[in-house]
């Protein structure tokens, strides 16, 4: 069964909505800024979406108030996404469209705020007693209530591969006939747990992140909301792109360090290619995980060298908005689709001198080129990997 991507939208520090992001990428202007998150004194750069805290949830969603859900709401407003979705709901019915969201930290920022205000009894103050917010499914509950979708709904949380894996689950649901379409996506927002947590692992950079550069010294944390509708191709004949393959794997190596030879990454890539029935040679562009951590970037080039030749362009786009964690999978899938739509392959922002230890060439500058088949990699803590393959649909 062919699976079409019928609509999509993305919001991150690189831009609110697709055209703002396209402008940032074309002009190579980064959305990273010195850390100005309230209550956070870490010396680092962050990919903060400026208007999240000013985004008001409509009255019927106020009980779901959290920074993460504000970011989701802001993201849903862009690119006419909700209008297009409403047309699909009219055609298919709200209960034939599922919801599969990805997140790393859900609404834990709101839980942090509540803990800073706990009452003597160790209970949350009244305003923070939000059962549907303080749990991992908060993004799925929010999106279902915000859109009126009535199909099956779940949230995948596998750290930084979360919103890549949503494509695999959504594809299985549609292939099985459980639903006709799925609204999938990912939302992760800046919070203290993530900033101080990655700081404790000595993984955050004091500078804007420099993916694949020889001087790279850690990640920049970002936030993002991305959404797409995936459907049986016959239900969306106007679609330009399709999901051709997905590959999921585990590293069996370490909780916070990638397999030293990239074994899990290679398996995810191989499984995605096999499902897409494509050879590695066919892939024109790969949007890499490329976090700018010392280990990830080196190991990812090892994995690439085992699978691809240098005819395949490969870049990391995290220099534009940082590592958006559980939202990185969907965000970078959308960046990949946009590269195909605009015939503009993004290079690797902030990569000035590639590490000589690398075993695969990294694209530094933007390149104008038509792409037929593209791939994106997402790797998470716990050694959890997901790779997606997209193709252009011919008229």
């Amino acid at each position, binding site marked *: 069964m062919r699976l079409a991507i019928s609509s999509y939208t993305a919001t991150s520090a690189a831009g609110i909505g697709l055209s703002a992001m396209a402008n940032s990428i074309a002009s190579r202007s980064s959305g990273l800024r010195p850390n100005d998150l309230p209550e956070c004194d870490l010396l680092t750069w962050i990919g903060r979406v400026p208007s999240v805290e000013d985004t008001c949830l409509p009255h019927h969603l106020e009980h779901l108030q959290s920074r993460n859900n504000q970011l989701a709401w802001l993201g849903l407003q862009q690119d006419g996404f909700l209008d297009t979705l409403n047309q699909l709901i009219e055609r298919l019915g709200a209960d034939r469209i599922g919801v599969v969201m990805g997140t790393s930290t859900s609404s834990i920022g709101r839980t942090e705020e509540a*803990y800073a205000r706990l009452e003597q009894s160790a209970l*949350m103050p009244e305003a923070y007693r939000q059962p549907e917010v303080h749990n991992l499914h908060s993004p799925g509950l929010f999106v279902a209530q915000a859109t009126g979708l009535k199909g*099956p709904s*779940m949230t995948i949380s596998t750290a930084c591969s979360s919103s890549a894996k949503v494509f695999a689950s959504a594809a299985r649901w549609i292939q099985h006939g459980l639903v006709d379409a799925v609204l999938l996506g990912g939302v992760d927002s800046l919070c203290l*747990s993530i900033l101080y947590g990655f700081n404790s692992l000595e993984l955050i950079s004091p500078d804007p992140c420099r993916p694949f550069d020889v001087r790279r010294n850690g990640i920049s944390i970002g936030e993002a909301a991305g959404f797409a509708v995936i459907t049986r191709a016959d239900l969306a004949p106007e679609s330009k792109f399709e999901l051709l393959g997905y590959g999921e794997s585990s590293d069996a190596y*370490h909780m916070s360090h990638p397999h030293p030879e990239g074994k899990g990454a290679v398996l995810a890539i191989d499984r995605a290619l096999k499902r897409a029935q494509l050879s590695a040679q066919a892939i024109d562009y790969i949007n890499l995980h490329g976090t700018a951590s010392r280990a990830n970037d080196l190991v990812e080039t090892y994995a690439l060298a085992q699978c691809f030749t240098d005819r395949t362009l490969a870049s990391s786009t995290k220099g534009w908005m940082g590592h958006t964690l559980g939202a990185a999978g969907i965000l970078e899938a959308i960046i990949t689709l946009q590269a195909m739509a605009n015939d503009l392959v993004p290079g690797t922002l902030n990569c000035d001198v590639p590490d000589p230890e690398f075993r695969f060439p990294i694209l530094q500058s933007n390149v104008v080129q038509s792409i037929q088949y593209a791939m994106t990699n997402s790797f998470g*803590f*716990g050694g959890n990997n997901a790779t997606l393959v997209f193709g252009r649909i011919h008229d």
Partner: protein
Amino acid sequence: MIELGVFGLGIWSPGFSNWQQFSTGLSKGDWLSGGSIQAVQAPIGELRRAPQSVKMAVEVMRQACEMASANPADVAVVFSSSMGDMQISDYLCHTLSKTPRLVSPTRFHNSVHNAPTGYWSIATQSYAPASAISAYSHTAPMAFLEAAIQAFEEDRQVLLVTQEGSAVPALRVSCPSNQPFSSAFLLAPLDASSSPKAIIRLSVARESVDWPELPRELQQDFLGNPGARLLPLLSVLALNESQEGRSTHNETGSNSEGWAHLEFPLSSNLCLKLSLISEPGPS
């Protein structure tokens, strides 16, 4: 509609540390008092410093694979919990509510929802796909559906875990769980040579249903635990192994459509229908 075999089961809670003890408890009312997860037989080493949530999950996964005689490295995993590890969330949020904000790096990397599948992958040297999901109060039946569809569509063994710890005070607002509970199901498509413990036919219907009742003696411990919502299914499977159980399901109506039927809500408007359609083989 899907027909799948249940090839292995695992279960752990302070009152029963494996399938045999759970079955005995149900049929004879004979429960453990205050069992400790420190006693698990799960592979040690990597797990020594793992949190209780990981030990619980790995223990039930090990049990289910052992019952099914399955190679752990061959099975895909779907781990599920509504809240994730509440002890770690509680630790992180308390630590971050005061200065200096010194977070333990180990507890931070253990805070990811997929920590149990990560440790499992390392302990069993499994490169198989692993997912970790939540669907809030509907987590357990939603995870069952997700695992079943994956087993069917990918034609492979899938190991499902449904679990929840006991709630910390502040998070009881979202999850009033009194006792930790973990269970595992090894699901796989049927083929001519397979001998499952039970065969389940499953479908999704546009119906609003209530949760099936938990066994009466387990209600106080597990009514607020979203990971324990499949206990009515586990109970039917356990009781069926004993003579008393056989007469029980005969009374409730054995017929060609299946000898037991259960319905679990997936949301306010959808339900998961499960029918057990043949006698399980000898264990």
